[in-house]
């Protein structure tokens, strides 16, 4: 019996090895990305049980979280970071896994590297011990973040034990106005559904505003699916997707590519497929947005003000939002545009790709970073950096007073030396504004690259649509 299916249903069915009576299923994992932070205990587990990596050729490792973004030819000075990086290198060599080290041109943030290498393909299952694995869903892949025990499970078996999640459709219709980017779309979605709104679900993003996005913009949207609590985010593949993949180092070539495209085209959700839940947003009505609090759901228009938590009925929610304001050192009613900044961070797996850097260059060319703040640009990978240099973007950035760094996760989670100091306020293109995320007692406002760039010049938030030279 055949029935209408969503893209998630189709990928699930094509990876199902078997299902128990209670619905617990064993699914096959096509691609496994590994980095230094969440893998050492998994490899140690393999050693202790005398197990091997089942499919080293389906595994790709890269170092990203701990690497300094300054010159690293002389090694990593922080001892713990160095040990973690060396441990990954040793583990990859012992278990036969391909590894990009910190000096490799292909090195970068794991979720920038996978797509760049053509390792990320439509219709595949892609797992990584990192919650932002949802990024790869932009290609119509089922991509999920997992814990270290599950990393070990995949290394040993190339499978995962899962239960099927619910289908959740987020339909974004209309045309996004100029200055409203993929980042504003996904932040607005999270503002709408809440930080736990997608729990237990796989979100499929559909609608004109989503298909209008470039593949890189779609990666930004899918990247933050986890910030809305979703198990994964997906966008059906189209010609843009196939064009992005074609001729990448690990992508299928020639006839095999044509055959793959045929399969990929058939993955899209059937017209009458059933979704457990649907939400609609009109992109035409969205403004550029900024987060004011310590959860990605705390979203407000650039033209808005800091909300008043006293107006919230639910007691736990009210108290949580009050303590968020205290942490952020903000008072209700403050205009977002009046918030002054100490630091601007541009980078991360959310917004560290070439198109993000081009957007930033467009805004900052001929301007200079405000004298009261420090601004830093960290490309998502060595290849992104190389491309930016070939386009002359590095010169624009440096002339404008930005620091231009080496690739890595950097100040998105501040495991390397790039950290906010206590009390510093940052406009960041990353994905999390949690307490202490970018440095102990640091304060984070999430924005798009264009908004971060404009704020770096002005010294406070500005509406990028009104930002003139």
């Amino acid at each position, binding site marked *: 019996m055949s029935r209408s299916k969503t893209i998630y249903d189709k990928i699930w069915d094509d990876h199902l090895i078997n299902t128990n009576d209670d619905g617990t299923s064993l699914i096959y994992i096509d691609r496994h990305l590994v980095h230094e932070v969440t893998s050492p205990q998994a490899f140690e587990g393999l050693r202790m049980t005398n197990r091997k990596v089942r499919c080293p050729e389906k595994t790709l490792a890269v170092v990203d979280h701990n690497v300094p973004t300054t010159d690293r030819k002389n090694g990593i000075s922080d001892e713990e970071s160095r040990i973690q990086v060396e441990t990954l290198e040793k583990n990859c060599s012992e278990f036969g896994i391909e590894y990009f080290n910190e000096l490799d041109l292909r090195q970068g943030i794991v979720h920038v590297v996978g797509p760049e290498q053509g390792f990320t393909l439509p219709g595949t299952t892609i797992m990584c011990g*990192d919650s932002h694995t949802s990024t790869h869903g932009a290609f119509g892949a089922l991509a999920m973040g997992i*814990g270290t025990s599950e990393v070990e499970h995949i290394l040993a078996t190339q499978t995962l034990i899962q239960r099927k999640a619910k289908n959740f459709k987020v339909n974004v219709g209309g045309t996004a106005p100029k200055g409203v980017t993929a980042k504003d779309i996904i932040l607005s979605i999270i503002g709408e559904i809440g930080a736990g709104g997608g729990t237990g679900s796989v979100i499929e993003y559909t609608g004109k505003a989503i298909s209008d996005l470039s593949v890189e913009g779609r990666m930004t949207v899918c990247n933050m699916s986890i910030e809305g609590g979703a198990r994964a985010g997906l966008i059906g593949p189209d010609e843009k997707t196939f064009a992005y993949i074609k001729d990448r180092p690990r992508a299928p070539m020639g006839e095999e590519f044509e055959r793959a495209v045929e399969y990929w085209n058939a993955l899209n959700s059937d017209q009458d497929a059933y979704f457990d839940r649907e939400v609609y947003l009109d992109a035409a009505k969205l403004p550029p947005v900024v987060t004011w609090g310590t959860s990605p759901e705390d979203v407000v228009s650039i033209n808005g003000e800091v909300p008043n938590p006293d107006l919230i009925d639910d007691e736990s929610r009210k108290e949580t939002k009050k303590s968020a304001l205290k942490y952020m050192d903000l008072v209700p009613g403050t205009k977002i545009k009046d918030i002054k900044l100490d630091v601007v961070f541009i980078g991360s797996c959310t917004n560290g790709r070439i198109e993000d850097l081009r957007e930033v260059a467009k805004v900052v060319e001929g301007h200079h970073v405000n004298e009261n703040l420090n601004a830093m640009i960290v490309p998502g990978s060595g290849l992104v950096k190389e491309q930016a240099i070939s386009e002359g973007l590095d010169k624009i950035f440096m002339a404008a007073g930005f620091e231009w760094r080496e690739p890595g996760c950097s100040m998105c989670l501040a495991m390397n030396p790039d950290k906010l100091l206590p009390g510093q306020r940052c406009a960041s293109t990353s994905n999390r504004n*949690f307490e202490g995320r970018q440095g102990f007692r640091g304060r984070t406002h999430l924005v798009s690259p264009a908004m971060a760039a404009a704020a770096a010049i002005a010294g406070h938030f500005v509406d990028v649509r009104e930002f003139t030279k």
Partner: protein
Amino acid sequence: MEKFKNLTAVAAPLPDINIDTDKIIPKQYLKTIQRTGLGKGLFSELRYNDDGSENKDFVLNKTQYRNAKILVAGDNFGCGSSREHAPWALLDYGIKVVISTSFADIFYNNCFKNGMLPIVLDEKEVSLLMEETERGSNATLTVDLESQEISTSDGNVINFKIDKFLKHCLLNGLDDIALTLEKNADIKSFEDDVKSQRPWL
């Protein structure tokens, strides 16, 4: 993995919503290459003052909750990062059960891999437990996995739901990699099928 059957212990209330894994275990503790020893970093930015002394206002530093092995927490507990260091830190501190109205999916999964039991209850039930545990002297709860029951000092009994497979693994302390390796023939035959159907993989 250690078995989980039942637990009678002090429960600490943590009513904030969206308690993220960065809050449970901040990034500076993620540089370890081991699973153990993370208890000292649990909630560290809430637990300690800037000079390293204990923050007296934080719930786990209060006399009646110091030995808590159960947390009753606000909605969407464990959101954010996939770091298994979050359950490792809770476990290393001694916490084996977390009760909330909802959990982030990855955190929820990670708990079961470490012999810990996350319990989802409805809003009313969590409020009731929150109220009881906030009265320090009534903070003891008994959680029994076999019967799927939580009993409180005030004599309330609350039933909870749990996936049959996860319950079975917890009760018996099963290693799910070993279980999966028993299905090697199925995995092999799946791989052979994919080779002919999707040869580009």
